[in-house]
């Protein structure tokens, strides 16, 4: 199971970076989304994958070992998802606006003012 998730994370990261290196703005956005999802899955994996264990210890439990699912990564992922949701919403509007003002989907067409000194 761990190996599968590791591979998935690897694919998400590499696909995200590949898409970010393209010149199209839409692909850039998709790349950022994939990277964010990869990061979320990474937190999930790093917290340890457990199945069917409660996040809170019962009173009769005396030791920590394998008796519970770590709730912290899930709280972290939830926070990160909400944040990336807001950022993505902003980025979509921004790119739409850029498309409206420049009339081009090509990121290389955004360097006009960088040529002046």
């Amino acid at each position, binding site marked *: 199971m761990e190996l599968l998730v590791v591979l998935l994370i690897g694919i998400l990261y590499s696909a995200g970076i590949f898409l*970010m290196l393209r010149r199209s*703005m839409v692909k*850039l956005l998709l790349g*950022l989304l994939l*990277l*964010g999802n*990869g*990061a979320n899955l*990474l*937190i999930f*994996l*790093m*917290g340890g994958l457990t199945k069917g264990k409660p996040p809170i210890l019962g009173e009769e439990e005396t030791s920590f070992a394998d008796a519970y699912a770590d709730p*912290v*990564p899930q709280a*972290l992922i939830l*926070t*990160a998802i909400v*944040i990336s949701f*807001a*950022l993505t919403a*902003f*980025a979509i509007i*921004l*790119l739409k*606006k*850029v498309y409206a*003002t*420049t009339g081009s989907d090509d*990121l290389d067409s*955004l*360097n*006009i*003012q*960088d040529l*002046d*000194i």
Partner: protein
Amino acid sequence: MITNFILAPILVHMITAILLLFFWQKVQAQKVISIIGNSIAFLLCIRLFITTQHEGYLILQAGNWQAPFGITFVSDSLSSIMVLLTAIISLAVGIYSTAALHVNRIKYGYFFIFHFLIMGLLGAFLTGDIFNLYVWFEVVIISSFVLLTLGGKKMQMEGGVKYVTLNMLASTIFLTAVAILYGITGTLNMADLSLKIAAIEHRGLVSVTALLFFIGFGIKSAVFPLYFWLPSSYHTPPSAIAAIFGGLLTKMGIYAIIRVFTLIFKPDEFIQPVFIIIAILTMITGALGVINKRSIRRLISYLIVCHIGYLIGGIGIYTELAMVGVLFYLVHDVIVKSNILMITGIIQKIRETIDMTRLGGLGKDYPKLSFVIAVALFSLVGIPPLSGFWPKIQFFGESLKAGHYFLLAAFILASFVTLYVIAKMWTEVFWKESPKPLTEEIDHFANLDFGKKFALVAPVTALSFVSLYIGFNAESVYEIVQKTAHELMNPSAYIDAVLNHKFAK
């Protein structure tokens, strides 16, 4: 001391921002509320600074969940210095914005977002939890996205895409690093991390995580080779917004680097050379970029990059005296950079351009204002009694003592280039004859009423006085940063205060 007071400045900015929402489109009311909010927060930040300097660490365990389980807020000496600087800049820029910004920008929520940005900065400086730091970073960057693109000019959009993309990428890398850190230690509290990281045997993994943090923060603080978003976006928004960005946002990255690399990862024989090489390249590329610029704003953008190199280099040397230099330079740099960016706004109001070849004669037309501007410019260069001089001595001395000769050469080169461009800027803008005859239509500044003129000039003058104070009263500043550097190099007191609530003086 355990106190809820730490949150006060953050809450004041939050409440101000929420209040401003109820005054949507009402420009005058927004200006008044913003200035009142900024002033209250300013006083609270001063109190926080003084209390922290006198009583030592201030701790707040949020929701009474004890560290390392809950989120901890810590005000140590470094945090309190950063909070004070933020308060000074936010008050100055807040007043400046009331006169410098177009009414439409204020109508569509400038002050609202401005206060959220400051709230995020204060939170980032005061938190003691690495994931909470990530969340505050996000608060700051989403506010900065809005500020940067508010207005929607083509130029702003072009800069905005680069800024947004690279900052989102930096956040993702930061989040990845936090995930790995949590995986190898099982904690997020910075004090607890400091202990747990030291106990990890697999040092390679620790080094990789440290590098991920460095890349994440490096993009935000604009170090070589991750700085390209800065010169292509910082000159696009109005000068008031650029003053906040140039003064505080890149320094937030530096703050995070100082915090993480003194408390959690101690620079070892792998990290230290990375810092020093990056610092040298940052200074050189920044210096090369600055030389051929004609627009003042672009020139300042590259100067920001160049001077980030000083700070990274100082952290790379990693001795207590070098850290004193870093902190002193940080204090000086935040004040001066914000000031100069506000000054470019005034110059643009007076002459309608910031292209140096088309400017001139300001020294003759505005002698008093020119004197105030001269103080800011020559502080940046570091002419001896002024504020930039003292930290540079530390950098030169420490890099020589530690035998980092290339770093020393880069420091000297960067200083000379700064001197050259500032001197060039001074002669072009203030001493040279004005290339075209000045008419009343061009000079928007002279036509302003007294209140607006005051709101533009007073913050600049005040910040110039702060620079003068730092320069002439260097001893008292030096004492504070020396104490701070000592705390940073010996984090055991910090850890004791957070985890065990032992507040040894």
